[in-house]
């Protein structure tokens, strides 16, 4: 909780702290910048793209050059344009999948953490089981079942990531429970649910907040993995993983650019998220001040 307060805190001290913080850690700045770039691409990517990212052309496998900065792929699609537009899909999937996972996981985590009765523990056990399923293959099955669409991929990935949040929140709840104010709340005769969602929930959000960007990163990686085996979003939707998949067989024949650039893009995007998560973690951690 203090972490969250500290973030929102507008005291001079905190401002000074933030400035000092970022001056001391250029990496965090890089991270935030990266995230900003990709987020803005989500919005402006399409308008910036020099070519239509989904329209086939007869510029077949052009190497990088003045006409196509990052070359073209087998269908004559401009790699650069597709990379610019891809965040619209990848980042959307990443962020909304993570958000959805939080929405599913957090409340269940609180319940399973606080309720020491059968359904509390049942939830916990159920998610233990879910956590055992090999996520990738299950994702493939689910997508194959639900059909290739952005929304389906989002739901599937969210489902697969929610156990993580359940676990996170549950353990945090366990630690928060001991705190005085919870007992106090209980003594004041608040209902269990009120305690859980008015007192425990807000105080258990810190790890979730930190985990969020990381998770978004995972979601993006998982998506690209799915597309790599042809179970991702529907082609020719520009998506980094799919682009890598198209380029993979071209590496041996010398058309390295088709796979190389999207790979770098994924790397940067996820790296950005990871870095900002890292910064968030330190910012929210009172002991690191």
């Amino acid at each position, binding site marked *: 909780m203090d972490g969250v307060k500290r973030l929102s805190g507008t005291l001079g001290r905190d401002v000074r702290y933030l400035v000092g913080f970022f001056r001391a850690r250029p990496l965090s700045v890089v991270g935030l910048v990266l995230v900003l770039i990709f987020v803005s691409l989500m919005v402006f990517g399409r308008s910036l793209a020099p070519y239509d990212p989904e329209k086939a052309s007869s510029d077949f496998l052009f190497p990088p050059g003045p006409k196509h900065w990052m070359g073209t792929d087998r269908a004559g699609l401009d790699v650069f344009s597709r990379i610019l537009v891809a965040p619209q899909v990848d980042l959307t999937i990443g962020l909304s999948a993570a958000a959805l996972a939080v929405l599913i996981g957090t409340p269940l985590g609180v319940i399973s953490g606080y309720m020491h009765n059968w359904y509390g523990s049942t939830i916990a056990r159920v998610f233990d089981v879910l956590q*055992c399923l090999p996520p990738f293959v299950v994702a493939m099955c689910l997508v*194959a079942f639900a059909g290739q669409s952005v929304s389906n991929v989002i739901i599937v990935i969210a489902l697969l990531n929610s156990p993580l949040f359940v676990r996170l929140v549950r353990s945090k709840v366990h630690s928060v429970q001991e705190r005085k104010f919870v007992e106090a709340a209980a003594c004041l005769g608040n209902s269990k649910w009120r305690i859980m969602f008015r007192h425990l929930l807000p105080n258990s959000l810190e790890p979730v907040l930190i985990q969020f960007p990381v998770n978004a990163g995972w979601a993006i990686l998982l998506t690209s993995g799915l597309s*790599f085996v042809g179970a991702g979003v529907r082609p020719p939707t520009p998506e980094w993983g799919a682009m890598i998949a198209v380029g993979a067989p071209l590496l041996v024949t010398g058309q390295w650019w088709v796979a190389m650039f999207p790979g770098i893009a994924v790397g940067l995007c996820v790296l950005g998220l990871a870095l900002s998560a890292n910064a968030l973690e330190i910012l929210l951690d009172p002991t690191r001040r």
Partner: protein
Amino acid sequence: MDRPARAVLTRIALVIPQLIGLTALVFLLVRLLPGDPVISRLGGVAPQESIDNLRHKLGLDLPIHVQYLNYMKGLLHGDLGDSWRTAQPVMEDIKMRLPATLELLILGMGIAVFLGLLVGVISAGKPGGLVDRLTILYALLAGSMPEFYIGLILVFVFYVTLGVAPAPAGRLGIAMLPPPRLTGMYLIDSVMAGQWDTFRDALRHLALPVITLSFWQAGAIMKMTRSTMLQIDESDFINYARLVGVKPSIMRRYTLRNALPPIISLAITIFAILIGAVVLIEQVFSWGGLGQYSVQSVISADYEAVTGFLMIAASISLLLFIVMDVLYALIDPRVKL
């Protein structure tokens, strides 16, 4: 009240319902898949008559719950049905491929854990130092790359361009035949059989995938180790021990002991998850392990194979997690099972 025993028992008691739930879940999940195993098996070019009688032969014309019960009956006798793609019993297929995956996993994770702990400890020794900064950067970078991309690039550089690595096509050179099977892990078997060139060849083929795997995973472990070590180092009880002049040897014992739980849990968690997650690495190196098997099965709508794989993989993970919980309970008196 003997803690270990109680811990183990309570946990085991939980496993049975979990396993049942698991099987039911997996069974349903796979039955949801589109595509029709019968038609796939007949290659789409077959008269209705043969489709029907095959469907009947496979018992796929029965209601779903009956199918599930039949499946469970088989499962109890270790029968996971037949894969139509390989025309072998799924159990056989898995038995044959599991060692390949394990060999890759054990080696890869071994190196990853080892380096992770090592570098993690070192960088925690001097926070903010050069080693530390580099470690963090590496951890972030490695975690940000899709593993299959790392693999592709390695293949591109070491095989296609430099030609120093062997072809990313399985575990042995073309003319090399597998050593007599004991464990199914070529390294061990070849040593047992004293076939040193086979051993060397197997090692050469392991190199790239193992490097991919450990490069991909070491980062996370490093980061984890580092933060754990720092936490412990800053913790009140270590500081107190210092204040009252506890011997260095005992100090080290304290640190280690308190570092153990999180690191065990991380290693096991990763290992458990990886059984399903090396899929793509295997795909890139056509490793012929469980991972590749599962992907091919999903792609060709091979129900039985997919179900079998999920069952096995999930059960293994489940067991690993139990082991973890028990270990936890043994190490940390605060944990109640």
